């Protein structure tokens, strides 16, 4: 078998430009596939990380009525903070939040908004809630950049906020935007207004009540507590998984096209070399090879393209991967569609598994594509091959 590899290697190198074109195309597929997959893994990782740090911590408890996709549930989604939660909240390991539907009137226009009460003192989530302690005669509020843009509000803007308290009575007050924050988590930005939890409880006439809780520690055996049911990080990030899955499916089409191009080139090369090298094939048979052994020889030779491509891919791919992992890649997308103020910068993550599977898949497809035309050799008549007479 060693000789097969040596022979294959020599023949490939001997074939010159053609081999290198094939190898370059294939190595390009290698690098692009690993890179794109790496970006997706990095994106997944980062999106979940951002979500954890900005919104959900290690998990949440939701009031059992609460459904973020149904605005009508919000009015009834609140209950007293369970006494079991109090120690954790006091230690700063749990953040209670109270939600209500409201309306703001920027420059006289009416714009619905979700009002969220959060303790100004919390440090569990990255939302800059300490700003809610700002001295102002209006209600201090903070919003995200997307919200700021869509409502034409900025730091220092004042706007009327209207809401309905728990008795069904409409009330209104002026809020002042004391800070605008930048985040890649759309669910805490788009159409959201954050104010102090105590103010919120007071205005809604819901003292000591909350809609949900984000907590810092996942390890305890948690389960439903009173009216609040547990949402693990896994439950809460399911949407990210779904998004990554969709992206992956979209990319797969691209991988297939890339590989198909490379495979077509190798297939063509194999056909040509089998046709051109009939005399050589006949010689192998005369020297005592069975035709199956010659088929194996040519298959190994074709499959060597993948080995060379992997080597070449390593030469320019590894520096590229390292550089990308360092500087990141700004995803070219319409950020407003995703409700993000800035395009997220993705830091690709390449796992050993990713590199090995990609290599294996490329090696396997190349072998199959090389074997396919080589099968013809098994049917060749060696005397005709020696005369180079096969059409």
């Amino acid at each position, binding site marked *: 078998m060693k000789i097969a590899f040596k*022979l294959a290697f020599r*023949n490939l190198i*001997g074939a010159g430009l053609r081999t290198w074109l094939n190898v370059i195309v294939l190595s390009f597929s290698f690098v692009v596939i690993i890179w794109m997959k790496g970006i997706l893994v990095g994106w997944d990782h980062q999106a979940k990380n951002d979500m954890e740090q900005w919104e959900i911590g290690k998990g949440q408890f939701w009031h059992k009525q609460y459904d973020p996709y149904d605005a009508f549930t919000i009015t009834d989604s609140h209950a007293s903070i369970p006494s079991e939660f109090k120690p954790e909240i006091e230690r700063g390991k749990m953040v209670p939040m109270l939600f209500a539907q409201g309306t703001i009137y920027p420059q006289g226009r009416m714009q619905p908004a979700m009002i969220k009460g959060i303790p100004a003192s919390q440090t569990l989530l990255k939302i800059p809630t300490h700003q809610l302690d700002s001295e102002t005669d209006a209600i201090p509020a903070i919003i995200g950049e997307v919200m700021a843009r869509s409502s034409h509000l900025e730091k220092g803007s004042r706007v009327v906020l209207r809401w309905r308290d728990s008795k069904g009575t409409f009330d209104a007050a002026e809020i002042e935007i004391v800070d605008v924050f930048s985040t890649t988590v759309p669910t805490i930005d788009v159409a959201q207004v954050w104010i102090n939890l105590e103010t919120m409880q007071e205005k809604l006439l819901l003292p000591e009540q909350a809609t949900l809780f984000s907590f810092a520690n996942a390890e305890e055996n948690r389960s439903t507590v009173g009216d609040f049911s547990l949402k693990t990080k896994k439950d809460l990030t399911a949407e990210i998984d779904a998004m990554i899955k969709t992206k992956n499916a979209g990319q797969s089409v691209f991988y297939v096209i890339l590989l198909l191009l490379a495979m077509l080139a190798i297939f063509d090369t194999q056909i040509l070399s089998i046709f051109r090298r009939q005399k050589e094939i*006949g*010689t192998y048979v005369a020297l*005592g090879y069975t*035709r199956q*052994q010659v088929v194996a020889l040519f298959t190994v030779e074709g499959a060597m393209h993948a080995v060379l491509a992997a080597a070449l891919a390593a030469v320019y791919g590894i520096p590229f991967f390292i550089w990308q992992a360092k500087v990141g890649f700004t995803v070219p997308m319409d950020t407003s569609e995703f409700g993000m103020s800035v395009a997220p910068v993705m830091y690709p993550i390449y796992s050993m598994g990713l590199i090995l599977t990609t290599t294996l898949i490329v090696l396997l497809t190349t072998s199959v594509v090389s074997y396919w035309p080589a099968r013809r050799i098994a049917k060749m008549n060696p005397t005709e091959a020696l005369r180079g007479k096969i059409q």
Partner: protein
Amino acid sequence: MENSAIIQINQLIKRFPIGKGEFTALKGINLNFGTGEFAGLIGPSGSGKTTLLNIIGSLDMPTEGEAIVLGKSISKLSAKESAKLRKESLGFIFQSYNLLQVHTVFENVEFPLLLLDYTTPERKKMVMDALEWVGLTDKVKSKPPQLSGGECQRVAIARAMVKKPSLVLADEPTANLDAANSHNILQTMQNLNRELKTTFIFATHDEKVIGYLKRKIFLKDGLVDHEEWITQ
């Protein structure tokens, strides 16, 4: 006639399908070859020399009749068995050398040994011996494109001889060589025939080759026309 027959050919007929019909290339050959012969199939182009040589070399099958080579009936061999016969006992020399262009002289000669169970040092010794026989020990690392036609054919002879086969089949080995090189390789083969008792069968219509033969078998239209024996 030599003592032990290594090839027996009885009523051998070979037909090739052409279009809807058939062409009969060998029309009933009867021949025996003994160990150590230096014989040639002589005849004009198209007389059936290559066809007969290919059947003896188990690269092709008889249509009718029998060819028994080293005790094996060619028509009864499976693909695997005929490959085994070739790798163990037969050597081929071709008109156009058929060397592996990307390999060195050493590797070309070593190639048949890789199919057999020899250790690396054994192989190295055998290859160097074979290159010594053909006088190419100084070209071990060269590749065929760097060699002259005569040198290429000498590499091919070394490749055919390296495993010391019982039988070497040479199809028009001098057709691409000038007179000096032709004589050179023929003398080389003559010496090997004498020293190693290897049987050589040529297919040729080259007068230079014919001059070296100890047995001349004249083929005409797929039949043995007549034979001549040279006794010294």
